[in-house]
């Protein structure tokens, strides 16, 4: 994707910073993953992510188990220098098992990718652009009315923040088990499920 810019790295000989996730590795490449310059940019990117939507970690279902929060801690982000935008986003709690809080979504699109490429249901999509971009279900309808959602929960397992959650969760209760996703992908790639 290369969209979030959190994985920026320095590559010797190239003046600009490159996103690691979209840069091909070459023989002899010299990569710097942690410099003062990189930390500075990462912190800035993180602050922008926090300012963009409504993150109230103290009351969030993912508190303590959130990748965004963990990253912010690890980068020493102790405040946000930009004005919060305080957008008005809703919670979609129409699904019988899961909920989606757009306030906490960072648009990483993991849920979309897992839904299309691992589950193959194609329920989740991104609609809109820029500040209006958001995750939708099917043809932009309440998740609970989706015909394609198989209720597999893979999107919930993949979400790095508190945006997707098991319905009924309270503060700090969303601990994800990404291992299950890895297990499925590995099993598929190595054809572990196909009898010899």
């Amino acid at each position, binding site marked *: 994707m290369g969209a979030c810019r959190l994985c920026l790295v320095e590559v010797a000989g190239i003046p600009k910073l490159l996103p690691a996730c979209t840069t091909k590795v070459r023989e002899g490449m010299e990569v710097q993953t942690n410099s003062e310059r990189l930390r500075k940019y990462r912190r800035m990117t993180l602050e922008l992510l926090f300012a963009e939507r409504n993150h109230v970690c*103290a*009351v969030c279902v993912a508190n303590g188990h959130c990748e965004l929060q963990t990253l912010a801690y690890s980068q020493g982000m102790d405040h946000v220098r930009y004005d919060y935008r305080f957008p008005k986003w809703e919670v979609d*709690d129409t699904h*019988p098992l899961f909920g989606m809080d757009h306030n906490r979504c960072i648009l990483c699109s993991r849920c979309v990718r897992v839904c299309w490429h691992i589950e193959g249901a194609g329920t989740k999509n991104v609609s809109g652009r820029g500040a209006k971009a958001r995750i939708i279900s099917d043809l932009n309808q309440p998740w609970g009315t989706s015909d394609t959602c198989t209720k597999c929960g893979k999107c919930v397992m993949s979400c790095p923040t508190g945006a997707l959650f098991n319905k*009924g*969760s*309270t*503060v700090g209760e969303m601990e994800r088990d990404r291992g299950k996703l890895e297990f499925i992908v590995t099993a598929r790639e190595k054809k572990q499920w196909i009898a010899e």
Partner: protein
Amino acid sequence: MAQRIVIDPVTRIEGHAKISIFIDDAGNVSDAEFHVVEFRGFEKFCEGRPFSEMPGITPRICGICPVSHLLTAAKAGDAIMAVNIPPAADKLRRLMNLGQMIQSHALSFFHLSAPDFLLGWDTPQAKRNVFGLIASNADLARAGIRLRQFGQEVIQILGGQKIHPAWAVPGGVRSALTEEGRDRIRAWLPEAYATTKIAFDLFKKVLETHKKEVEIFGNFPSLFMGLVDADGGWEHHGGKLRFTDSSGSIIADQLDPQKYYEYIGESVQASSYLKSPYYSPLGFPDGMYRVGPLARLNVAEQMGTPKADAELKKFKKLTRGRNAVTSSFHYHYARLIEILTSIERVEAYLDDPDMLSEDLRADAGINSLRGVGVSEAPRGTLFHDYTVDRDGLLKKVNLIVATGQNNLAMNQTVAQIARHYVRGDKIPEPMLNRVEHGIRCYDPCLSCSTHAVGQMPLHVQLIGPGGTVLHEVARG
């Protein structure tokens, strides 16, 4: 190096407040108003959120009684799911509430009120605080601090180290007591009992030297409200509501707390941002009632534990016949009896095998679009009333907190004290300290009890017949 710790008396009340004392043509105090002007806008803020998040959100309302909001929010959630929670979960929640009673009452008695009792009203502000208490009676101060610590430890052992544990959830609780935790609690018990005994002995002496305070610190007729069990005994988390009057008669009994709106009205007064609830069959303001320790002991026929029952008998003898104890100065006394019963109940729970149970959480969807949770917080009955849509997103939130329910009583208390001290058009210094203590009898936590925007430091105004400010004293 010299250290300077500034403690303004006002900072010992959580939040900010303003007091107006009204003088009539004859120069007498006619009325007083205790305005609360701090707002955190929680009711609106919660709209649109899933109800299951409320036990995480509402403890943020008040740093002083997060546990009460946590448990009441979880209870309201039970009602929305329309489930009976597992018996073990109910007992564990009760255990936490008892821990909260102990820690909150110990704070109120030892840290906040004891300096006034022991050091005297006219000791300068700078000394009349817990540091002054440490200087004059270190053992007592230390015992009080440790009693509070005991209550906090009960809470922490159950809910984890966090200050705002989202441990109770709609349908039950997230974890049980461990054997290790149980043993840690047990180890505290002898000391907790001993400290409580010291407090009782101390307070009985205070009563002998504070006869005047008993007379004028909020001594007036009113209704009292609190939860009681099926036998009319003391209850703190469950049971039904009872109203009694100052003659000790039961006005209404075994009222379903879920339907509080059928018998409690809420009047909004322009002068204060607090809602003033009243018992609606009697109208406003006749239906004014008090909540909290004093009210709970007035409505309860027994405490349900032997040591506390013996104390309750003495407490009830403070008045003749079956009459209620009407002086708010006795909130202090009532707090001690509640600490005692809480310790006894904690002790009894330690031997209950349910405390280690694994059946802790009932699961269900949205089965009722409105759910009310009611629980006795240390300061008084707390109501959380949630209305949700079919998906469980909150459409309306109404919170009724203890300080709101006691607001009218606090006004009367201030007026009564002022009447004894105000002569002419000046606010005399001795009155300020007493008014402050009169309010502290209710142990108000002001930040959670207001409903509009604004902030002001505390100040007392003496207001003449034409509305002119005769004298003004600001503190803080």
